[in-house]
């Protein structure tokens, strides 16, 4: 029964990560790629590396989702869970970093409004770096978990048996 529950939990979390790391960014980039505001003009995303960005989002998104399944389907406070959670956070960092190195953090929109032409550029590199800092703290937490689960393995098993 516990195994089934773990599998269901793993599947739910995988779905959540597929939506947040693949589907939402993919739809967002497709939406802004050819944005047209009625009565104002045409706004075009000028990002030559668009295909590259989508590739890395998809690649890392799939790895994160896979790790999420193994992490959340593992028993609570198990070493297996700690290992997969640590891998998942590290891949999450690479996923965020992929936004930076693929050029997704420097978005350039060309526009034509009322006869005027120009561009609007948005740089999100600092924001990505702040998130990287938060992920670094999460890595510390996951390493702490791994050490804790390894040291207290016997006690955790006894508690699991009692439950």
């Amino acid at each position, binding site marked *: 029964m516990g195994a089934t529950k773990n599998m269901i939990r793993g599947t739910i979390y995988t779905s959540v990560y597929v939506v947040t790391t693949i589907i939402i960014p993919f739809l967002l980039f497709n939406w802004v790629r050819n944005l047209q*505001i009625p009565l104002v003009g045409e706004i075009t995303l000028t990002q030559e590396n668009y295909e590259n960005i989508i590739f890395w989002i998809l690649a890392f998104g799939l790895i994160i989702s896979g790790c999420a399944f193994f992490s959340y389907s593992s028993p609570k406070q198990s070493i297996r869970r700690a290992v997969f959670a640590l891998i998942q956070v590290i891949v999450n960092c690479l996923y965020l970093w992929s936004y930076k190195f693929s050029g997704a953090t420097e978005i350039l929109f060309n526009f034509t409004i009322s006869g*005027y032409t120009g561009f*609007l550029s948005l740089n999100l590199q600092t924001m990505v770096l702040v998130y990287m800092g*938060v992920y670094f703290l999460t890595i510390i937490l996951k390493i702490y978990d791994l050490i804790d689960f390894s040291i207290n393995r016997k*006690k955790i098993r006894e508690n699991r048996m009692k439950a």
Partner: protein
Amino acid sequence: MRPSRVFRLIFRIFILLLTLSVTVVSILGGLSAFIILDPYSNNIGVDYTDASFDVDFNNSTGELIAFNFSLPFNITNAGYFDIEDLQVAIKLGIRYEHIDYTVPGQNDTIFIKFFENQQNFGTVTKGNKGLFDFTGDISNVISFPNATQINWYRTPPPDLEFFANFTIGLTYSLGLHSLAFNMHNISIGDYSYP
């Protein structure tokens, strides 16, 4: 609960609060960008017809001896955070008929970039409107044609046509977002020999 788990819980809550703070700031920053840049709102008010020029040549040599340029503009910070590090960069170009440019006796209409300047206007606090005046003088002039090289009897007038590339740069969301807004080849005025 084991003491190690209590410590972990506290650390986890701290990370959660940190993540939520950054996320809220990012979302509000993105929302603010939409509010400020809304084309119907006129939050960025640049009226190119208000641009003023003062061009003066040496009567004997025809060299440019004085040039002053000013462009008033305003920015209304309708967002949730202060606009910081507001920078404006303007490049000016001139189109005129150059006497004997390629072949003696033949006048060619050419376009050159002659002015480049960047100014920092600091911070516009949230909810406030900043009124600024971008200025430039002869020290910002890269190269200007000699008056003797300009055809002052160009038909149809004007003799000199001024164009601008205009870029506004700013940081937002406590420095998390950087925005730049550019418009190019805007006709901002002309000048004919009186």
